[in-house]
């Protein structure tokens, strides 16, 4: 009987020893027959430790050596722990958790923050409750007096888990697709910037054909360079290095692109100062990047930026101290305004505290609608690291409380460099995902606008059914679509030769008679692109030396939804016979009184008449084909005369001006063509095109 007991105890101890792992140190005692390898491994560990303990740890270099050690001896607590830490600081962070768990199993007190790191592992795997439990265990070990900062960090992590749990329960309907092998590589690809119509992109990559072929000693990746790709027939072309002068032998990273793609902002490290530079494109050539003025590029780190669509404001990230807060190294969002007289970005303002937090903000992007600002933040209700948020500028200049973009756009890892096309449907982000090409990749996020199905009831409103009236669309309410803006793009060309023309383009708010912005068409290819947020009546004036100005009008209603309009503009030389339509001359309905909104356009005519004092012109009125011929002829003549009267009032000699009313004798778009159009909106646009005041040069 006694023997049975002893046997049972022995068996129990044996089985216990099987489950309780023993921490095995790298000693000769433990590896008696592997002296040579052990010596090498210990050297590797020492080297790895030196990398690990650097001021800026070289985790990738350390990891490589620790993993060798681990292969030799997988049961060392410290090595497992350090591998975990290294992994957490690389793109293999999702692999860290098993190492931490093993480290703790091997030695409970392997490191004071082991519970914290296990918590980090669960956090990244979205095992929220387990993560919270680990964080709480770690918190209990901290000293409330001396570990205030650490406690704050742990509390933040717990809060992030709570946020994460909530956000994951209400996922956003999105599709997340890797941008594919034409764009991505097995090397880090990130920081995508795009034109407003998402037809062209630039991004940062650390692939082998970097300019200068240098490799970073810290992370062993190639130096950063800027690459580009274009959308052709719905597919992205193979990414190309943009070359000099944007790319140099150092790190060159993308930051921002103007909506028309004519200006790019890049980031240069400047030995840790971190500054923003601007390059301007002509055709396919970029200028040497020039630093922003010191109001933007302070002596602190500036990392990210984006232009407002009218080009008048620059939103950017800076680590400058806040004055009374004085926190160094807290990245916040600022905005600067372009001063045309001083040709500088001035009047820098920090965005308010409901947007900026005590934690870092980064990756700022202003949508082409001019009011929705996307940015990443480690504060607010982030679920971990940087999350993407959006805030909307209000009429009174304040900003709405930022809204987390939700899961799966946001994850417990850093989610940053979020950009969006003008259509509000296609967004882009950098992410590390298992299904990627290796390391960070660029992803397209399709944001699905939930469209309710349309069901139709049946109505018989009147009791007498045979004379009945149906209510039509009583039941049907179509959801408003997200982006209410128009993207206008095309080329500016010579009307005779069809050659591209570099021109200045002025965008005017017709209701306020105020210039909103000025930009240019490309000298080499004539290209231009402008974003017109909904809710305004826009005038567009295109000017170039030696040409008659060109006028267009776009009344973009908020209810119009998203539109992309292709418009090639043909400029006529200042010659006898050249004719333009003055699209921003307005009259009240059926009347010939000029509306105030016409002033800007007519003053342009005054300007050109004064510039060419011998010029004589005809102003002619034209109507659409609806209504009687005599009525329309009469109205159009009166309207032309009203324009002449205005010009005379502005000092132009009446003898230089002739007027005529043509009614609908000279429509641009014929009735037959209009009848063939399917959509009412197209028909109405055609009628509107026919209604115009024209200017024709009679004499120079």
């Amino acid at each position: 009987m006694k023997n049975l007991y002893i046997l049972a105890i022995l068996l129990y101890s044996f089985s216990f020893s099987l489950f309780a792992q023993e921490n095995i140190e790298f000693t000769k005692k433990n590896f008696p027959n592997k002296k040579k390898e052990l010596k090498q491994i210990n050297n590797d560990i020492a080297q790895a430790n030196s990398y690990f303990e650097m001021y800026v740890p070289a985790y990738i270099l350390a990891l490589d050596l620790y993993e060798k050690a681990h292969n030799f001896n997988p049961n060392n607590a410290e090595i497992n722990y350090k591998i975990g830490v290294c992994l957490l600081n690389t793109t293999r962070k999702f692999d860290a958790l098993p190492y931490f768990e093993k480290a703790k199993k091997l030695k409970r007190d392997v490191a004071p923050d082991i519970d914290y790191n296990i918590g980090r592992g669960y956090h990244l795997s979205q095992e929220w409750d387990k993560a919270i439990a680990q964080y709480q265990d770690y918190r209990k070990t901290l000293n409330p007096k001396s570990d205030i900062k650490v406690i704050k960090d742990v509390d933040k992590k717990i809060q992030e888990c709570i946020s994460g749990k909530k956000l994951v329960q209400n996922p956003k309907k999105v599709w997340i697709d890797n941008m594919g092998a034409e764009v991505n590589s097995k090397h880090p690809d990130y920081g995508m910037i795009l034109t407003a119509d998402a037809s062209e992109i630039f991004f940062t990559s650390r692939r082998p054909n970097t300019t200068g072929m240098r490799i970073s000693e810290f992370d062993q990746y190639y130096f950063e360079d800027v690459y580009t790709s274009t959308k052709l027939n719905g597919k992205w072309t193979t990414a190309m290095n943009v070359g000099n002068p944007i790319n140099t032998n150092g790190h060159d990273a993308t930051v921002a692109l103007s909506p028309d793609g004519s200006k790019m902002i890049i980031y240069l490290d400047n030995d840790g100062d971190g500054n923003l530079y601007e390059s301007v494109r002509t055709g396919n050539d970029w200028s040497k990047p020039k630093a922003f003025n010191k109001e933007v590029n302070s002596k602190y780190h500036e990392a990210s930026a984006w232009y407002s669509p009218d080009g008048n404001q620059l939103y950017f990230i800076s680590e400058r101290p806040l004055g009374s807060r004085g926190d160094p190294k807290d990245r916040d969002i600022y905005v600067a305004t372009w001063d045309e007289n001083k040709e500088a970005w001035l009047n820098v303002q920090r965005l308010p505290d409901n947007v900026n937090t005590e934690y870092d903000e980064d990756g700022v992007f202003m949508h082409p609608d001019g009011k929705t600002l996307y940015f990443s933040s480690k504060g607010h209700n982030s679920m971990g690291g940087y999350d993407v948020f959006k805030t909307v500028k209000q009429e009174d200049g304040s900003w709405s409380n930022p809204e987390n973009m939700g899961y799966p756009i946001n994850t417990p890892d850093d989610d940053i460099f979020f950009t969006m096309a003008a259509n509000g449907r296609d967004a882009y982000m950098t992410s590390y995902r298992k299904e990627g090409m290796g390391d960070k990749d660029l992803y397209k996020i399709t944001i699905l606008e939930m469209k309710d199905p349309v069901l139709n009831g049946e109505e018989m409103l009147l009791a007498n059914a045979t004379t009945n009236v149906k209510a039509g669309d009583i039941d049907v309410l179509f959801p408003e679509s997200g982006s209410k803006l128009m993207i206008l793009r095309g080329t500016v060309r010579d009307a005779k030769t069809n050659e591209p023309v570099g021109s200045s383009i002025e965008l005017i708010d017709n209701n306020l008679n105020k210039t909103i912005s000025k930009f240019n068409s490309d000298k080499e290819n004539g290209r231009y692109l402008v974003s017109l947020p909904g809710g305004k009546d826009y005038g567009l004036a295109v000017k170039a030396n030696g040409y008659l100005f060109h006028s267009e009008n776009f009344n973009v209603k908020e209810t119009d939804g998203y539109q992309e309009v292709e418009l090639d503009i043909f400029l006529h030389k200042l010659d006898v016979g050249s004719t333009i339509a003055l699209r921003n001359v307005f009259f009240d309905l059926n009347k010939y009184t000029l509306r105030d909104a016409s002033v800007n356009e007519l003053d342009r005519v005054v300007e050109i008449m004064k510039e060419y004092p011998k010029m004589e012109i005809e102003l002619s009125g034209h109507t659409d084909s609806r209504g009687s011929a005599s009525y329309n002829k009469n109205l159009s003549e009166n309207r032309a005369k009203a324009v002449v009267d205005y010009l005379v009032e502005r000092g132009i000699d009446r003898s230089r001006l002739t007027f005529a009313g043509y009614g609908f004798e000279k429509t641009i778009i014929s009735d037959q063509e209009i009848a063939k159009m399917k959509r009412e909106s197209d028909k109405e646009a055609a009628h509107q095109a026919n209604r115009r005041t024209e200017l024709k040069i009679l004499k120079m």
Partner: protein
Amino acid sequence: MNILLKVMFSTCFLVLTFSTKGQEPNADAKLHYTRGSVAYESKDYSTAITEFQQAIENAPEFTSARMSLAYSYIETNQIEKAEEQFLAITKYLENPHLQFFELGLIAENSGDLEKAIEYSNQAIHSGKDAKYYYQRGIQHFKNESYAEAINDFSETLKLNPQFKDAYNDRGSAHRMQKDNESAIKDYKQAKDLGRGSVIAYNNLGNTYRETGEYKEAINVYNTALSISKDNPMVLNNRGLAKFNNGDLEGAIEDFKKVIQIQPDNASAYNNLAGVYIEKEDYEKAIEYSSKSLSKDEDYAYAYYNRAVAYEMLRKDIQACQDWQKAADLGIKAAESYSNKMNCEN
């Protein structure tokens, strides 16, 4: 032909007397009139017209003959000639309210509502009758002058508080003015008077549905269906209320029943598509919206629903085609969705 018109004509025909302005028609005129009446009764309208014309030739002021001739013209779809006769009569009678009323009906049926209202004004001026106010109310309604319609229906009810159709129609006018509370009150009156009109129940149900009172709407539709079993209009609307109330299976059942009764009902097929979109069964949604389009190839809402389903299945080319078709058929939102998907490219 307008039922009301027919009723009026028949009634008038029965009570016609040999009315003239002061003078008795001569014997020949009476003879032709009698022959015409006999021919009219036996639906020999051609003979009736000839005889009445002869009667009028003999006695131009023979208003009864002119009335009968007008009705004969209406029966043979010679509306303009009927109009001429009614107009002629107005010269011979002191209070030609009935004639103006008939003229109003003719103008209404030909779509000239302004003219119809003018005639109705004259009818009312000559003789205040509930039916004149009622008809003018309808004309105002069709002309989208709902405030005026409400006034006329109210006048109708002052003259005849039992005129339940006026309650129904006034309710609809309130509804068009977004005054659902008043609409509900009137519809309830309409359905409570007499044996209850399915149309009034249907309208009441639809109003409850619009105000979000889906359960109430369903109850009303149920009552309507007890009066008019398997009425497809009511079934369709009940299906919609069930859908709004989250009872997707119930909605499917009702829409399928509508299809059983009306196999060519494009709206019912499309409604089924809508339910399947809600259930995220996009393949089925495509199936039903396609069926809807096979019944009505220009049904814009079916293109819309099918586009939604295609888009959710990531069949972008098909989605684009349907968005563009929906936009061509007048759904402006579809144009924006098409632009956002970059369909042109």
